[in-house]
Structure formats: C-alpha cells, structure tokens
C-alpha cells in the first residue's frame, strides 16, 4: 500500500501543492489530473523519491520510500524519452533491461514488441522512430520489468487508439495481479474502477 500524508512541495518561494493525502491499496489505480503546471509530474517525482517534499511523508507498505525501496519496487516511465539515439532498438532494450537487472529473454521480448507494435524492425536506430513509436518503446519496460508499482507520467500522450486499448488491457492485468498504478494524464482511461486525484 502507498500512503501519502500531508504532502507539500515548494519550488523556490512558490508553493506547488499543499496537504495532499491519499492511500492506494494493491490492485488499485490512481489517476492524477489537473491543468498544466499544477504539479502532476512533481507529485509523481515526489512519490518515486526523485525529489524531496517540503513536508509530509510517503510510505510503501509502511516503509518510508528511499532510493532502495524505489529501486526495488517502483517502475517509472516519464514524459521524456530515455533511450539512446545512437543504439538500435534491440541494443536499447538490452541496455535498459541490464540497467534494471532483468534477465534477457528473447521470446518474452518478441511477444512484448508484438503486443505494442505488431511488426517492427528491431535493427532500426532509435532516432528513426516516430514520436508515438518512441513512446511505445518506453512502455515496453512495463511488460519486461517486473515491479509491483508503476508510476506513469502521461503515458497515453501520442499513442494511437489501438495502443491505448492495449495499454488499458495491460493496466487491467496489472491490477488483477495486485499491482499498484499511479498515473497522471489529461485523458480519462477506460477502466471501470479507479481513484482520481484532482490537483488545483
């Protein structure tokens, strides 16, 4: 369970948000919504411990989230791309799986690629992909790295309808397996049951 208590964050002299409270249990999804600049990405960064809050606490299974907890249990996919332009898609997948200490399995990789791309030449260089394809490659991590908590910053941005449906199916499976998903998005997701946090 992730529990956020009285969380506040300030950048310089500007208070971004104040007294945020919520609890998410295994098998639940939290959708963070709000206008541009209200602090959705900042809140996600706080949860994953990339930045320290001004006040308040964030715990995972009653443990304060530090670098160790975050690296063991959390998977973060942000808005900007992390792949290396000069490497091929295959090399990129291998690189990031080794960074996440995942044993490389070709059949799982092929299935995951097929799930998102239908057909893709993995010998292409990363810079040769379109924006949507680059985004999909980032989301491949969700299928290849097994961590219980997914933190996703605007994952639906730039994706086609078919991929959005696939991604929603993936969310459903994760929740069935008692995973936790926290995501920020301007769009609504097509799941039946999820919590919403509206930032103002």
């Amino acid at each position, binding site marked *: 369970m992730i529990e956020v208590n009285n969380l506040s964050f300030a950048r310089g002299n500007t208070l971004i948000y104040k007294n945020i409270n919520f609890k998410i249990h295994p098998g639940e999804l939290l959708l963070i919504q709000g206008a541009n600049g209200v602090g959705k990405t900042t809140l996600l*960064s706080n949860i994953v411990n*990339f930045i320290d809050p001004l006040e308040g606490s964030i715990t995972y299974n009653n443990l304060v989230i530090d670098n160790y907890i975050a*690296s063991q249990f959390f998977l973060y996919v942000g808005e900007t791309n992390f792949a290396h*332009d000069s490497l091929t898609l295959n*090399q990129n997948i291998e690189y*990031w799986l080794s*960074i996440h*200490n995942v044993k490389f399995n070709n059949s799982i990789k092929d299935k995951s690629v097929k799930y998102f791309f239908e057909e893709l030449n993995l010998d292409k260089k990363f810079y040769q992909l379109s924006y949507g394809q680059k985004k999909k490659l980032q989301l491949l991590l969700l299928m290849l790295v097994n961590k219980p908590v997914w933190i996703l910053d605007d994952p639906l941005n730039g994706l086609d309808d078919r991929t959005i449906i696939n991604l929603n199916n993936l969310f459903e499976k994760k929740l069935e397996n008692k995973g936790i998903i926290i995501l920020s998005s301007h769009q609504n997701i097509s799941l039946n049951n999820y919590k919403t946090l509206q930032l103002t």
Partner: protein
Amino acid sequence: MINNFFKLVLSEFQLMLKGSVFSFVLYCLLMISCAIFALSLKHQSVGINAQLSFLYIMIFFISLFKVEKIYGQDFNEAKIHQYLLSPFSLEIIVFVKNMMIYFNLIIFFIIFSPLILIILNIDLIYLLKINILLALSLLSIIFISSMTASITISKSNKLSLTSILTLPLFVPILIFSMAITDLIDFNTGKMYLFFIAYFLLNLAFSPLLTSFALKKLSA
C-alpha cells in the same frame, strides 16, 4: 546481477564505440594544433618539456570536451530517472561510463601517439614512456572531468559556475607529469606511483560526488 553487470559493461562499450567518431575528430584537431605549435617553435631549440606541456594541456581539453559531451547525452533527466531506479547504484554506472571514456581516449592516443610525437619533434624512444605516463594520468583526468561535467549539466546556470572549483584538482597531475619529464629518460618508478595513488583517491570520491551532483542538481 553479475551477468547483468557484464551486460551493462558490454552495452556501455557499444555506446563508447558509437561515440568514437567524436574522439577521432578531437584527435585530428589535436594533430592540427600540434603541427601549428611545432611550426611556431621551429627556429628555437627547446627541450622536450614545452612540447609535452602543450600535449598535456591539449589532452586535458580533449578529455573535458569528451566527458562533457558524453555526460550531456547520457545523463539527461529521463535517463537519470531510470538509473536511479536501477538496482545498480548510480556510482557504479558513473564508474563504468568513466572507464569506457578512458578506454576510448587512451586507445585513440596510443594509435595517434607516434604521429603526434613526430609532429611535435619528440624522439620516438620516448613513445612508450609517454604512453604509460598519459595512460596513468588520464584516469584521474577523466574522473575529475566527470565531476566538472556533472555540475556543468545541472539545470541551474548559477550552479554551473561552481564546476570551476574542480579545476585545481587537475594541477597536481600537470605538476607531476612535468616533474617526471624533467628527469633523464623519465626514469623514476616511484614518481609514477603518484598517479596510481591520485587515481585511487579520485576513485574513492569522484563517483560519489559525480552521482550526488547528478541526483541533486538535475532534480
């Protein structure tokens, strides 16, 4: 974990190979600058020191440029976020990257060094000794440059200026390198130990400071 560490090293090696074109360009520029320097000294008889000092300063700049470029590319915000969530600590990733930059630069230097020595009018009997001297000192130069680069790529321009504070750390390398070249045939084994000791010192604090700067200044 160990298997994946070797995979990580292999992937970093691939990345290093992709960045070799930039190193090649830098070494070509080094040869041009050496040629201009040698031409400017053609009517004066100077010892080996002037040429070697020039070579050292150029290698120092090459290392700084190379490390800055690699760090700018490989440590943007999105990548740092993934590195922070990796079971490998950021210090280990920094160490592997630094070592790969080192191998990239030193291999190019070993290839280019006969040509550079000829251009600088340095006797080729010094080739091996100069290569050893540079191989030892470049390790420290790369690790110090990584601290400079990690501060420079921070989001805050004001903090970027603090990278100047790391520059005095290069001074002992220059002083000792020149001290060694003052001796007849560079012949004193104990002086070389300084570079190993200085590298071990850098190895102790440089990855820590670099990863700290990357974590805090990119947040």
